[in-house]
Every structure is written in C-alpha cells, then in structure tokens.
C-alpha cells in the first residue's frame, strides 16, 4: 500500500505516494525524473547515488523514500544556481576531474557536504570524504585538486562578499 510522503527536493516541496519499499534513489530517478543521481550498484558500495539528506551525504539506494519524509534532499540538479555552475562543479570541469562522469554527481555532493562542514580541508580530509565514492577513470588526483580549488574559490567568495 502506498504512503503519502512530503519532502523538500532541491528547495521545492514535493508530495507523492510511494510504495514502502521504494528507495529514495528510485523515487528521485523514476518518479521525479532527476536522473542526475546515478545507480551504480544498489548496495551502497559505489557512492554514485550520493545525495545530501539534511546536510549529510547518503547513498540514496540505501534510504527508503518514506524515510526522507519531512526532510530536505539536495541532488546534483539542485546545485547550480540560475544556470551558473556551483564552484565545485566549475572546479571539476576546469581541473579535469570528470571523465566518464558517472561518479561525478555523487562525488560532487560528497565534496559539497565536506566543504559545508569543513571549508578548509586537508588533502587527507578530502580523500577521506570521497573515499565512499568510487571512480574507476581518474585515479582521484584531479578530483582532489578540484575540491581543493573549489575550497579556495568558495573561501575567497565569502571573504570578499
């Protein structure tokens, strides 16, 4: 039997009826057509489905849609504002942190969750924060560089504004 749920997704209130076994990943991808969140394993191993739930990065394949009821979800689609890339997204583009791009949305959101809590992370802190997001293409180096770059840009923006 379906349950009515409400949550905020990328700043907008969403109301829907879902089966109790529907995962947040399925809900986002199939019901809301937010396909930027990727399905890589369905087991919480790869991190491709990472979204930010109430400020914390989670594997959306391991969260039921009903568990997100009343909460705030940020997906990759909610990061750019008015068509402008978020500094993390921009840094990923500029630094060559993207290859196939399949891990990218989850990777960027893990980085976002990190920088929100820790604006000046060390390299080890960055590597630890993204260690649940597997990437088979890059060897991670350019991803780490992109997060460092983004941290600098975000830091600079806040100081000047």
């Amino acid at each position, binding site marked *: 039997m379906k349950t009515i749920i409400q949550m905020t997704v990328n700043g907008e209130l969403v109301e829907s009826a879902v089966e109790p076994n529907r995962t947040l990943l399925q809900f986002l991808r199939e019901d809301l057509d937010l*396909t930027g969140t990727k399905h*890589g394993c369905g087991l919480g*191993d790869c991190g491709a489905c990472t979204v930010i739930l109430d400020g914390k990065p989670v594997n959306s394949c391991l969260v039921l849609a009903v568990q997100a009821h009343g909460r705030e979800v940020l997906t990759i689609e909610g990061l750019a504002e008015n068509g402008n890339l978020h500094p993390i997204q921009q840094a990923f583009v500029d630094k*060559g942190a993207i*290859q196939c791009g399949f891990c*990218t949305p989850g990777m960027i959101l893990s980085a976002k969750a990190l920088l929100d809590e820790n604006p000046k992370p060390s390299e080890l802190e960055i590597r630890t924060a993204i260690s649940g997001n597997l990437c088979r293409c890059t060897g991670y180096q350019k991803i780490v560089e992109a997060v460092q770059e983004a941290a600098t840009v975000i830091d600079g923006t806040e100081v000047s504004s």
Partner: protein
Amino acid sequence: MKDFKVLNTRAPRIDGPAKAVGKAKYADDLTMPGALYAAILQSPLAHAKILNIDTSKARKLPGVKAVVTSKEAGLVRYGVSPARYDETLFAHEKVRYVGDEIAAVAAVDLATAQEAVELIKVDYEELPAVFDMFEAMKEGAPQIHDEFPGNMNAEVHQEFGDTDAALAQCDLVVDHTFLNKRQDAAFIEPHSCLAVFDLDGRLTLHTSTQVPHYVMRTVAMVLGIPVGNVRVVKPYVGGGFGPKCEATPLEMSAALLARTTGKPVKMNYTREQVFLHSRARHQFYAEMSLGVMKDGTMVALRNKAVLDGGAYTSFGIATVYYSGSLLGGPYKLKAMKYDGYRVYTNKPTCGAQRGHGGVAHRAAFEQLLDMTAEKLGIDPVEMRLKNIMATGDVTINELDMSSLGMKECVEAVRDGSDWKNKKGKLPKGKGIGMACGFFVSGAGYPIYRSDTYHSTVVIKVSEDGGVATVLTGSAEIGQGSDTTMAMIAAETLGIPLSHVRVVSGDTDLSVDLGAYSSRQTLMTGHATKEAAEQIRNAIASYLAEEMDCSPESISFSDGIVKFDGQPGNFQHIRVQYIKEHRGWTDPPSGEYLTFREAARLAYLKGGTLVGTGKYKPPRLGGSYKGAAVGTSPAYGCSAQVVEVSVDMETGEITVDNMTDAHDCGLAINRTLVEGQMQGSLSMGLGECLFEEVKFDSRGRVLNPSLGEYRIPTALDMPNVKSIIVESSEPHGPYGAKEVGEGAIMPTIPAILNAISDATGIRINELPVTSERLFMALKNKENA
C-alpha cells in the same frame, strides 16, 4: 614547432558542464512511453545439460508480455572474432558457466519480469565442471565445447630467430614464472540498454557500449535484421575499459523482445550480472626465460602463456596473441619464441581489458628484467636504457616504432623520481622500482576481415557559418574523444573550440570501429582532420574566387581569415552578411573577415558546407600467422617509477609515490592525457595489490559486488607525478598517438620491483595482499 591555437592546451572537456550538473544522459536515464522492462534468466550451474525449459507459468503471470528462449531467438552463432563464433544468444542443449543466459522476459515492470524469470522451470542434468585452466588442459577433463578437444580454445606458436641457439650463447639466462588473477573492469555504470523498433522494422538500440559499429553488426546477424535497419546509439557511457567492446546478451535480448512485443524494451545488468558477463581481464600464467650477455645486452626471450578464458571466446584469440606480440618491444631482441594457450573453463568469459593481453606478461617480463639486472649487478634503469628501442626501430616481430620516446620516458621518470639518490639507498621496508611498456595506437586491422574504413567523419557547417558540427560514430566513453575531435576540428578549421559541436556514438552518422585498442585519437582524429581540411579548402576556394586571389594566400586561425596575412578587401562580403542577418544580435565585426562570414559565402555559392574524412591504416606487419595482432600505425610508450613502504610485520604495502612518463606523440589535450595516465595507474595498482574475482567450488563468483571486489579508493591512490613526453608521430594526426592503455603497462611490475627492493622478496603471484606478502616474509625468515 608547436604553433597551435587549440591543440596541446588544457581546454576543459566539452561534455564537462553537462556531466557536472547531472544533465548528461546515460543509457539508464532514457525512458520511452509504453516501454517494457526485461530480465534475464541465467544458469545457476556451471556445467549442465538442459533437458527441458518450461516457460508456461512465466507466460501466464499477469503483466508478462513475452518470454524468449533459444527456440524464439534461434541458434545463430556469434562472438567477437569470426574465427571463433562460439556463442548463441541463449543456451540450448547445455550451459557452460554460472550466469550463462537461458531466457529473457519482458513485462510491464521490472519486478514482474524478475518474478517471471523465477517461474521459468529448467530441468538440468549436471555435468562435471572444470574451473582451473591447468586442470582443463589435462586428459579426461570435462569437455566444455565439443569442437575444441582438450578445452583448447586457441593456440599460438611464433618464433623469430633461433631462440634456443641464441639462449645457448648467452652469458646468463634467468627464468621466471608469474600468475595474475582474473580482474573485473569495475566501471561504475552497469550495462544498460533500450531497444525500440519503428513501424517499418527499423531497430534503434540505445546502449552503453564502446563499439556501436560492432554491436550493430552482431545484433543484425544474430536477430536476422538487415544491417541497414539497425541503428545503434550510444548515450554517455559510464566507463568501459574493454568489457563493453562487444555486443551483449542484454542488447540482443532487448532487441529481440522489442521485436516480439512491438514495444520499447529496457534492460539493465545488475552489478552481479556485470561480474557474470565479465569479458574483463583474463587470468594469465606466464613462464619466461631471458638470455643476456654479461654487459647487460638482451639477446633472447622465451615466453609461454596459459590463459584462463572462461566459457566462451570473446576477444580471446586476440588476447592470446597480444601476450606474445607485445613483448617484441621496447627492448631490442635477437630472438623471441612464444607459445600461447587459451583454455576454456566453466567460468564467466574473459575478454579485453585496458592493456589488452599485454599487462600480465609485461609484468612478468619487467620483473624478469630486474632480476637479471640484479644478477649482473647493473642498475635496472641502465639495463633498460642499454637495450631500448628508438624511433625508426622495428621489433623482431615486425612492429614499426615510427616514433618512440621510450628513452626520454625512462630518463624523465629516473630524474623525476630522484632515482639515483634512492635506488639501493632506502632503509629496509622502503623500496623503489621501475618498469616500461608500450601499446598500440589502434589495432592495425578490424576484428572482422574487411576493407572497411576504420573511421569516417562528417563535418557540417551551419548555414550562418557560425558552428561546425562533427558527426561521428566514434565512442566517447569518458576518455574524452569528443573533446579531442572537437579540438582537432577547431584547429584545422582555424576556429575557436567553442564554435565546434560534436555528435557522436551513432551508427547512422559515420562508420567508426569504436573505443578499443586506443584507436580513436589517431584514427578518428585523422578522419576528423581530413573532413575539416576539406571544408577549409572549399571555403578557401570560394573565397579566392570572390576575392580574386589564390586559395593558398588565404589562412584561417582563431576564427578569422587572412589574405597573405592581411585583412584584405572583404567589406562587400561583410555587408552582404549583415544585410542577410538584419536584426540579429551578433553581427560580425573587427578588422578581419570572420570564419563565419567566409563559411556563409561558401554556403551561398555551394550549398550546405560538408566535409568528409576517412581513415584506414596501410597494410601493416609481417606475413607470419598472427602477424596482424600487435600491428598499429603507431605506438605509445611509457615508463614508471614507484616507491612503496612495506610494513615488515604485517606485509601491508603503501604506495607512496608514482612517477609516470608517457609518450603520446602530440598531446592533443594535456589534461585529458594526464587523466588517462592517472586512471591507468589506478587500475594497475588495484590489480597489483588487491583485485581478484574469486569463485567457490561450484564456479559461483564469491565477490560480485564493489564492496567485496575492492577497487582503489581515493585513500589508496597517491598523487602521481605525470610527465608528458611528446615525440612527433608521422602517422598520427598532428603527430598524436595513444595514451589510454599504454600507461597501465609498467604499473604492476614497477610496484612489484619496488616491493622486491623493499623486502628482497620476488612475488610472482597477484594480488600482493598483505597476507600474501606476510606469508612470503615468514617463509623467507624460516628459510
């Protein structure tokens, strides 16, 4: 020399923003109204006769729209190489591994399809199975394919020079054996596809593949559809690394079910099914002997390979040839003998993976080199430099090194790693090691015998002259080929990169053999360059007519046109352009004629401006059996130095530093080149230190998940010092050649040589887990 405007830069990749904001569409992101979902029934047994398949219950389940088995699919045999078509879409008579496909179901949703799969009743008669390649070769072993007695799938015997005689004359002969483990490519995107037929019987198959062209051919052949009626479209692909280089049962099932039901059909592999489909790195056993003179001159190599192929051939024939041919360089040899055997076992099928066929044997050989150098008391770097090939050398198996910056790579990593101050000077538990390797820039021949072009490209200029669109069947799978082609087109046309668009991965656009054997930069690059040159020449010729000058006096660069280096008297062209575009927001301006105005003029004179390019390599290689495998128009090469720390108490290995130099010819895009280098090292590090697909005693994969099959995380990879070495490759577009696979060649042996330096122990079996190294340390203590 490098007077480039677009090439050789660090231009951000053109698909970066779409991927960064989550708008890039991958196969599983596609939906179609009315689409059905399908699932596959796979064998739970490794080897069994199929006595009966009863689909009646599945068919009766509400929501099921079609159930197909070999009865419906037919028995057309297919595979990668026509010489070994040993698969049918669905197993009939018998199954040969846990995961062999038996049936597929299309239903209104995935859950129903999966439920229906469970309702298919298959009666099996279990047969004895064999999982070990050496057991499979023994007399009396279970026979997996009737046509291949002794489970011998492919055998290669090659000799260049007289190896035994050469070895007999050597001052020193050193032997070595080596065993790697079956690897999984572990791309993050599982295979996914969506098949749809239109009303006139035309199939469009959207699929996560590296090779739209080969998928088109195989699907057409297996399902009996005229090849002209099959269109394969590749959306963005979440990594391939080799296993997505062939048509899959997923794609063929979806197409068959779409035809049967008249509806679009969507299918995905689960992560477990990715492991079962496999087609990834083989397990190789290497046995080799290297003969040298006292001064370190390499003379002869005897090399034997046994490959565990799994249940079917896939790319296996090429793989077993590569294990021999890719040791022909980058060192000079007077004699080389190779015996290779690929053996069937009742396990998922192995195929091509990054560094196809070459990685394990390169690892064995580069270890052997170090062992030999140690016995001779020669520094491993010096030993390599002494024997190294240079531009213009031809290997003993007739591979032409038309450019080869191997020496430069070795010197770059030696100096970049401070080798001289570290080798032999590090404390116990710390070690440094090096290795080299090379790889093809595109296979010299297509997989099927054909005179086909390997790449064709169409470039079309918009009628306003402002945008050039590159249309190509080549496959962007993350390596950056779309960006590479855009850059080549922009440079050739003399326009900014932002004025070029790329539409790719669609068999309706052009012929392209796809993303394998590191071929697209060179081959698709050539075709792109030629197409762009055609457009540039056409514009020049129309302009010359209009301006009453010679076409040779006209040059294109940065989006502007010069006549003998001057602006020229072009005002009437501009006036006409502006009149025709009255009210538009972007009238051409500036001191010079723009490309846009020139291209518009060409359109007015000759209609839509289109250029076409094509490429196929010349006849390459020797005339001995198997000479085709290993040929290429050009070869990339690389050298690496790795530093490790070993915990002598636990055997735990930490890779501290990696220094990597790669000769990719002209680096079209320096960031993308580094990306390939670093990604290769990461995959090599994983294979060396922890990756292994494991099986239970009944042939079931024990670790079919990315949790239990561990690939490197951000915490496992050190930062890599990446050094790009640029030779000028005469056969590459603008001198460019490969980087995507050659870079993985030295990684495993460089790590192993570093471990040996740190511990004094030669490990000859992968992966070097802490357990394996700990046991080796214990054994050494007790010895």
